[in-house]
């Protein structure tokens, strides 16, 4: 009975004729490797995102005044709403991660070389689309992080010369973030970019089928344009196996593991946010982007200002141009990573730099913790046995928000150096100068401190050193044991 139905469908759709060129197409046996599972893994994540996204769109309201409410409704009231949100969030993390691994694997296996240049290029456009989905998606979680993150994106867009302001208005659907902005991002995230991705995935898969999957590279087997196609055909005849069912096993296992991974992370960690109503008047907020943009967040904090605009505008263009040009720069030659040290070095350094920047973005040492001045008291052993002037100095240290940038006893900001042993680095005069005039990354406090406060503060800081440690002293003053210590102007001790 079922067979009759199958025949009836096949007589109209001709699916079985399609089978030989799609699921059943021949692949080199060496391509049935664990390294080859990441492409299908990425596609699986995308399908999961579409399904969960549709479910979320049943309830989510893309309106500036209702989005946050609908998100909390999804979290708290909608049956399994929190779980759907969590799957969608973790699905996006997994998708970006697996996609990057897929890209690295393709690069290291030389699969971008002749004749698969278009596959690589379509893949690079898919990378940009996925990052676009990540950015628009995090805006749709319309909370404080989203609001201020959007402002930062608009600010960067505004730095484009000549058309910057117009680009900002195009991006925000107006001059400032308002109701229309969210609708625009919703349309991009739900209709425009997914449509583009679906079309590109179709092209990408079509290319994989028409050109064949990359054979497992072997050191010494080089690609030459004249002979590659014939060699590949011979390889298929020699060790070709149908993809289904002989080479799909590892893909299936990996897909199952990815799904389980997403579900476990979603169940254990839950959804992200929303963190706070997107009310611009609530300014006691510390905006942070999602994890896939933390590296950019760190870069923007660490770059010197004269480099920043140039890099923001030029680096993406150069990077994307290099990516697109790669198959034409290095389209022939060795495929095996063992014979391509430059390729390996490139991948290792990119991942290392990206990973370190992401970690730094996570810790954000440049960001002053705004409550440290009142929340992190001076450790008790820095107060014991001090004179009244020095204790007053400790009070000045706290009240003037110094702790927001400087740590004592391990707590406080990391924007400036820790002050636990500042007396071993700076003399009294140097401390006075530094506090009054600032310098390095430190603002000048001269206008905000009275001379008495400066005296107390520096007196306290001169006690900040390990017991019996050598205190910094002025090298121009000779040290003679029989003479009393010289009085430096304005500061005690």
């Amino acid at each position: 009975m079922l067979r009759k139905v199958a025949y009836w469908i096949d007589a109209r759709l001709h699916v079985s004729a399609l089978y030989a060129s799609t699921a059943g197409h021949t692949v080199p046996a060496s391509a049935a490797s664990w390294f080859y599972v990441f492409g299908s893994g990425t596609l699986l994540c995308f399908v999961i995102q579409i399904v969960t996204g549709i479910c979320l769109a049943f309830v989510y309201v893309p309106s500036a005044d209702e989005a946050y409410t609908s998100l909390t409704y999804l979290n708290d009231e909608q049956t399994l709403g929190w779980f759907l949100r969590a799957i969608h969030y973790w699905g996006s993390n997994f998708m970006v991660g697996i996609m990057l691994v897929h890209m690295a694997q393709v690069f290291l296996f030389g699969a971008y070389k002749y004749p698969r240049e278009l596959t690589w290029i379509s893949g690079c456009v898919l990378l940009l689309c996925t990052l676009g989905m990540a950015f628009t998606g995090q805006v749709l979680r319309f909370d404080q992080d989203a609001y201020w993150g959007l402002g930062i994106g608009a600010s960067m867009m505004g730095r484009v010369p000549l058309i910057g302001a117009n680009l900002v208005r195009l991006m925000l659907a107006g001059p400032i973030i308002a109701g229309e902005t969210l609708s625009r991002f919703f349309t991009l995230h739900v209709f425009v970019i997914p449509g583009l991705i679906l079309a590109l995935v179709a092209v990408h898969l079509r290319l994989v089928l028409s050109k064949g999957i990359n054979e497992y590279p072997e050191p010494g087997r080089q690609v030459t344009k004249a002979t590659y196609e014939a060699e590949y055909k011979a390889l298929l005849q020699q060790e070709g196996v149908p993809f289904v069912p002989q080479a799909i096993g590892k893909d299936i296992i990996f897909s199952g593991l990815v799904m389980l991974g997403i579900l476990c992370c979603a169940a254990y960690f839950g959804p992200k946010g929303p963190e706070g109503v997107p009310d611009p008047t609530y300014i006691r907020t510390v905006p942070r982007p999602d994890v896939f943009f933390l590296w950019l967040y760190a870069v923007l904090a660490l770059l010197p200002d004269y480099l920043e605009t140039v890099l923001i505008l030029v680096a993406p263009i150069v990077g994307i141009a290099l990516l697109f040009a790669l198959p034409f720069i290095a389209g022939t030659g060795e495929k095996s990573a063992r014979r391509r040290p430059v390729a390996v070095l490139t991948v290792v350094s990119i991942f290392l730099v990206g990973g370190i920047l992401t970690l730094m973005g996570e810790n954000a040492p440049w960001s002053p913790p705004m409550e440290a001045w009142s929340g992190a008291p001076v450790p008790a052993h820095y107060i014991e046995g001090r004179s009244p002037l020095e204790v007053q100095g400790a009070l000045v240290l706290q009240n003037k928000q110094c702790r927001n940038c400087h740590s004592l006893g391990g707590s406080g900001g990391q924007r400036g150096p820790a002050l636990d042993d500042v007396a071993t680095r700076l003399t009294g005069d140097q401390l006075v100068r530094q506090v009054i005039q600032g310098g390095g990354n430190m603002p000048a406090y001269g206008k905000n401190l009275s001379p008495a406060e400066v005296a107390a503060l520096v007196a306290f800081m001169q006690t900040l050193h390990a017991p019996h440690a050598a205190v910094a002293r002025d090298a121009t003053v000779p040290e003679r044991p029989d003479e009393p210590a010289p009085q430096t102007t304005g500061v005690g001790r």
Partner: protein
Amino acid sequence: MAIQQHDASQAPPTGVSRRKFLLLIGAGLNAIAAALLAAPILGYVFASFGRKGPSQAWISLGPIDTYPENQTRLATYRNPFTRPWDGTTANIPCWVRRITGEQFQVFAVNCTHLGCPVRWFQASRLFLCPCHGGVFYEDGSHASGPPRVGSSSMSTRLRMAHCWCAADNSPRSLSPSKCSCVLTHACARDRIAKGAWYATKGRLLD
């Protein structure tokens, strides 16, 4: 045979056949229709391009007495140019600094680096930005960190013992906007016409 050859020899060697002509008409008609369809769609999508400058309105930030001298306070106002569904995004905060007497400075909360909200600390008289560590002095000038320029203050004026600021419709945290003194408030125009006082940056000239 002879007739067919005769016919064949009469087919025009140059010129347009009927089929080609039909195709040309079809293509031309569709080109016109596509252009007529594309124009409003593009106009809709790129409606914001080439718009002439920001529109402005004066917003009251409250009586002068609510701002103690030598202090900086947070004030909020509702964006006068809103859509009905803007919700909380239409509430705009700003830092109001009363220098002394009737000298005011009003700053947008956006850091000039990339637009995060800066926080004021009275004791140290500094604005600290939580995102990338920008710091500004109380007059808005740059103290440390990534921002390249200091904050510029918005146009302010005093009228009827209230402090007003010019809320304009321009994107925040682009290059510091020049404070333009276009007044849209009807009373203010009368004031200027009568040669009465007109204040920029909060100074009372009289």
